[in-house]
């Protein structure tokens, strides 16, 4: 049955359907409602799990690390500074190849402090070895959490489901919450082959020497690369079970005959679809690709989508200071490797919650179509007059 639910509430319904046994978290805006709802479920006896309100995000991540190592299905959620405080543990979880699922309620990173949404938090931990899936809607958040446990447990890799703070977490919209029996059929019970067991003592993540650390790391990279196929296959299988799927790694929109193609992530895609429809209506051949899976980076899927494009413009809500857009940089490398000399323009926007409206996106499409500046990243909607300078202060 379709229900009108707040995004945070919808996503915890999905978490509950996955039958986690241990939940640990520390509240941070805009993730808080997710954790509050889960705590309520547990307190009301509606979710038979251990709920641990940790003393910090570092503690929360450590608890779920231990839980999965002990063979339990576990869940956590965080955002922004909270995710950064988890960073050390995120690497450990991935290095131990622990199949954990977390929701990142994407939020900007301090300083200056800002509670609103962008992708700087999750993009900052892109090298930690977690699968990262960015969702467009609350329905996709629900469905992706369920997919994420299958992906994690099939690949023995942790999965981060990235949903835009406020734009999704605090928005009421219609969602279909699957039936428990259907989820049970799609997601088998968790059996962790390397469960810690005092009867057969074993160490996870223990000391490694120069003669084998490289091999551990290479194996981790290989597992991530191989996860691409699994992620795509599980999305298709989810479609067979539930009638909804999301393009697997990358979702195309109106690519037929498109000269200029925008690549973006997350909830911004709704406005990009609106803008593309308007421009198409005006006879401008534009299309879009939503990058659903950022890690592993789906070079092949993107190359396939962009094969017919004359130019690409990436609209992204995070950047590497001193370098520019992260997705655009990686996409340029992928296209170069594939021998596809398609110019890729980079626009950074929507930082700290600034709304990327269809009008702003149409303007970016126009700027990209007139294609002159492919060398550097540009900030969409930048008010240069409002930029502070150290001298002034």
């Amino acid at each position, binding site marked *: 049955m379709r229900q*009108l639910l707040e995004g945070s509430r919808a996503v915890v319904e999905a978490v509950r359907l996955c039958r986690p046994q241990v939940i640990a978290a520390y509240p941070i805006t805009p993730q808080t409602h997710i954790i509050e709802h889960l705590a309520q479920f547990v307190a009301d006896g509606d979710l038979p799990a251990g709920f641990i309100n940790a003393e910090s995000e570092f503690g929360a991540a450590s608890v779920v690390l231990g839980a999965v190592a002990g063979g339990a299905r576990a869940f956590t959620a965080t955002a922004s500074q909270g995710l950064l405080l988890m960073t050390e543990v995120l690497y450990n979880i991935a290095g131990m190849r622990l199949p954990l699922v977390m929701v990142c309620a994407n939020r900007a990173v301090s300083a200056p402090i800002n509670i609103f949404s962008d992708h700087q938090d999750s993009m900052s931990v892109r090298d930690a070895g977690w699968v990262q899936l960015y969702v*467009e809607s609350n329905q996709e958040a629900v469905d992706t959490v369920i997919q994420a446990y299958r992906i994690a447990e099939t690949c023995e890799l942790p999965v981060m489901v990235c949903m835009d703070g406020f*734009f999704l977490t*605090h928005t009421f919209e219609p969602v279909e919450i699957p039936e428990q029996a259907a989820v049970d059929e799609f997601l088998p019970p968790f059996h962790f082959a390397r469960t810690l067991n005092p009867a057969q003592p074993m160490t996870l993540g223990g000391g490694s020497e120069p003669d084998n650390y490289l091999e551990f790391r290479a194996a981790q990279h290989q597992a991530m690369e191989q996860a691409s196929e699994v992620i795509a296959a599980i999305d298709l299988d989810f479609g067979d079970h539930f009638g909804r799927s999301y393009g697997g790694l990358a979702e195309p929109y109106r690519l037929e005959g498109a000269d200029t193609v925008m690549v973006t992530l997350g909830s911004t895609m*709704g*406005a990009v679809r609106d803008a593309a429809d308007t421009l198409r209506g005006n006879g401008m051949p534009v299309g879009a690709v939503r990058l659903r899976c950022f890690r592993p980076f789906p070079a092949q899927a993107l190359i396939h989508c962009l094969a017919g494009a004359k130019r690409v413009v990436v609209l992204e809500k995070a950047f590497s200071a001193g370098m520019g857009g992260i997705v655009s940089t990686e996409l340029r490398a992928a296209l170069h490797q594939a021998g596809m000399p398609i110019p890729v323009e980079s626009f950074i926007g929507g930082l700290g919650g600034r709304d990327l*409206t*269809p009008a702003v996106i149409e303007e970016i499409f126009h700027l990209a179509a007139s294609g002159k500046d492919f060398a550097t990243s540009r900030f969409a909607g930048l008010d240069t007059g409002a930029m502070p300078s150290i001298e002034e202060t």
Partner: protein
Amino acid sequence: MNESPESRAKSDGKEKEPAATMQCFHEIRFHGRGGQGAVSAAALLALAAFDDGFEAQAFPKFGSERRGAPVEAYVRISTTPIRSHNQVYTPDAVVIQDSTLLHSEPVLQGLKQVGWVILNSEQPPVGASTAQALRWVAIPASRIGEQFLGRPLPNTVLLGALAAVTGWVSLKALEQAIASHLTNKGEDVVKGNIDALREGYRIAAEKQEQVS
């Protein structure tokens, strides 16, 4: 005020029934102050519209989560799936929970020509409707809220007024939304809000009658 608002709303017999079969797209912007319940009002409206068979979306603009600070919340009601997650810039109606916001915030910005202004006030501000062909509905919602809820909460009164003049959502669905959304606040709160909703509906319907 001896007659119950329930009987009056029912005896009115002119309730507009929204039809999800006709193509529509409405955007509503709520302006209030922290603590007045703009975010809850938006959620209730979306829940009701969804119950009436429409696609619906509600979300807050979290500028300043402080009691008394200006707050905005948005609702979209549509016959087709809503994929935008943008704020509402060109609303078809604005609901203003505190009339002092008229002087401090750009509450009418982007409001469509012949858009609705549902205002918590004893009367429309003098000269306010001259600039645009706006349709003003002034309801003493805080006073009515005080009467039914014991606190000057204008929320559900204004929702009733919005439903009465626009017909975008049914009174019945709003009542159901209040009953389900506020159930954990107790029977008295639910009943008080439903009575306040009906009274807002009744007064706005009456005012519209007088105009037309």
